[in-house]
Every structure is written in C-alpha cells, then in structure tokens.
C-alpha cells in the first residue's frame, strides 16, 4: 500500500511537470497553438534600420500582424533589405502601404509600423513595400539639431 501512495505522488509529479511545461509554453513564452509559421513574405528597403533585429514585431495601428524574419544588405543599392512575414489573415494591405521603423518608448525596442494606403490591389507574397521611412537615430537627430543651431 505504501507503494501505491508512492506511485500516486510520482504520477502527480509527472503531471505537475507536464502542466508546468504547458504553462511555460502558452502563458510565459506566448506560443500560440494556432497558425505558427503561416504567413506571406514582404520586403522593404531602408536607409538605416537602427536597432531592428530578426523577430522584431511588425504592427499596424499598434496591433502585431507579423515579424521580421531576415535582414541583409542589398549589395546593388547598398541599403538594408528587411524580410518580414505577415500573417495570412492580414490580406488587406494595399500595394502603396508604407513601412516605418518606430521605437516603442524613448529607449524601447524598435519595430516596423505599417500604414496602409489607398490602392485596391493588395500586397502578395514576395512583394516590396516602396514607401519606407528609416529609423530615427538619436545621434543624428542631436547632430542635426546642433547643426541647425549653428547655421542660424
């Protein structure tokens, strides 16, 4: 009978471990069971991407609609080219949408904000967003400000 209580408690331990892993997955790492990896790719070129990294979020009106999946240098234009994956259900971005690199808070992390345009045609897999705005680099801003002061 002592064996039985032992087996039960070991069973509970196993169960607790499994539940903990589920909590870690869903609640803490925010792994959503639905629609992982589903999405279409859109490209955009930027002069300067600042602190943008892979896995930075892509959002529209503050709602996350995808994430940055790759960053490389376009060797012809010598600009940064960002590949982002947009969720499949977001299929209403017009071809004249614009992409901006924004900062959440003064020192927060950087993300891409998409502002939709007015065209009827929508972005498809592999399309490019033409209208882009680079990251605001604080040093440049301060430099410009000082330069303007001096030239006045």
């Amino acid at each position: 009978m002592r064996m039985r209580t032992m087996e039960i408690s070991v069973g509970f331990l196993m169960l607790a471990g499994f539940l903990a892993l589920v909590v870690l997955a869903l609640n803490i790492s925010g792994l959503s069971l639905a629609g992982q990896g589903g999405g279409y790719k859109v490209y955009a070129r930027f002069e300067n991407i600042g602190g943008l990294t892979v896995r930075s979020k892509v959002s529209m009106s503050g709602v996350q609609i995808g994430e940055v999946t790759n960053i490389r240098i376009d060797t012809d234009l010598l600009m940064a080219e960002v590949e982002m994956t947009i969720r499949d259900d977001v299929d209403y971005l017009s071809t004249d949408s614009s992409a901006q690199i924004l900062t959440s808070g003064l020192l927060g992390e950087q993300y891409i904000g998409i502002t939709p345009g007015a065209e009827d045609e929508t972005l498809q897999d592999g399309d490019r967003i033409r209208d882009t705005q680079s990251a605001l680099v604080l040093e440049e801003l301060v430099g410009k400000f000082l330069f303007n002061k001096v030239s006045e």
Partner: protein
Amino acid sequence: MLDWIQSLGHTGLSRLAAFGRAGQLLVQALVAKPAPVMMFPLLVKQLYFVGVLSLIIIVVSGAFIGMVLGLQGYTILVDYGSEQAVGQMVALSLVRELAPVVTALLFAGRAGSALTAEIGLMKATEQLASFEMIGVDPLRRIIAPRFWAGFISMPILTVIFSVVGVWGGAIVAVEWLGIYDGSFWANMQQAVDFREDVLNGVIKSIVFGFVVTWIAVFEGYDCVPTSEGISQATTRTVVFSSLAVLGLDFILTALMFGEL
C-alpha cells in the same frame, strides 16, 4: 618543490583513474540488460525519493527567487521608466539561467548527497556485496534506477521551478508594486521564445540532471566504506556537482545564446 609537483601528478592521475571508473560505471549501469526483478517499481520508488521529496524545496526556493527578481528588477528598471519590462526580465533570467542552475544546485544538496550517502552505506554494510553474492548485479539493481530517477526528475523540477518563479515575480510586480498586469504578461510573452529560451533551459536541466546524478551515484559506489569515507564522498558529491553545474552552465550558455 619536486614533492609538490609529484603530489600534483599523483592527484591528477588518481582523479583521471576515478574518472575512468566513473565512465565504466555509467556504461555498465546503462548498457546492462534490464534487471530481472521488475525495474519499474524500483524506478518509481527512486522517483519518489529523488523527485517528489525535492518538490517542496524547489517550489519554495522558486517562489522566493522569483519574488526577489521581481523586486530587484523593478527597482532597477523604474529608474529608466521601463518597469513594464520587469516581466520579461524575471521570465528570461529564470527560464534561461536560474531555474536550471539553482534547481541543479539544490538537487545536488538535497538528493545527490542522499544518494551518495545511501549507496556508500550500502557498500559499508556489505549490501552491495550481498547483491553480488545473490547473483544480482548491484549496478542494475541499485545504480541504474537511481540514475534514471535523477535524470528524469531534474527537467521536471526545473520547469516547475520556472513556473513558480514567474508566478512569484508576478505576485510582487503586479499585486504589490502595481505594474499593469497586461503589460507585464504581454512583454514577457513577446520576449520569451519557446524554442530559444524554454527548450534551451530544459536541455540545460537535462544535462545537469545527467551530470549531478552521475557524480552522486559514482561517489557513493566508489567511496571508502567507512564513516569517514562516506562523509568525504558526500562532500565531494556536493562540491563536484556544484562546480560541474556552474562550469557546464557557462559552456552551454555560450553555445546556446552566445555568438559562437
């Protein structure tokens, strides 16, 4: 001077020999055919001693460490006005580092030392020899179930530690310090990646579980069967496993999260 070098060489050689014996033990205990008398009840029993009985210390330490992290994280981050990031800080430091390492250290102190002392005492009271004379390989009957129990328990205890720790951090940050719980959890979920952070932490804990139980079981099996020998072996278990865990943690962290 020459004496010193000689003693250094002697220590090195005997350590190397012990390491060889430890490897032999591992191979024999694991490669050996399953024990004739049911292995499963033995494993359950060891899981109970090693896993279930370690649960309380793991839960209590996890809660306190999470709460301290929440408190410290808040006081540091509030200076930069980014106290919402406390959730992300608590979760990342727990899942990646503190849960596997602290669990392994507590495990070495709580279960590892007990394993060593138990096996050492079995050796001293001739129980191991007795198994051999009955025709049962003590490696299979005594060592293998204990080894597997430690190996299985460690990842379980680690994930429990993580969850309890995050919960402790949330209690302090949200309930006590008044951070908006939406941003607490959202920041955390956005920063913590399941594969990158959670699974890597679990992999760490599996490695630690392997190393700590291996050391504990070997030190018990290899000890000098006297009361002094057992106490030394128990100390060695705690010291060696702690050092091994900390050293391996650095190597694993460098491999997993470093830019190597």
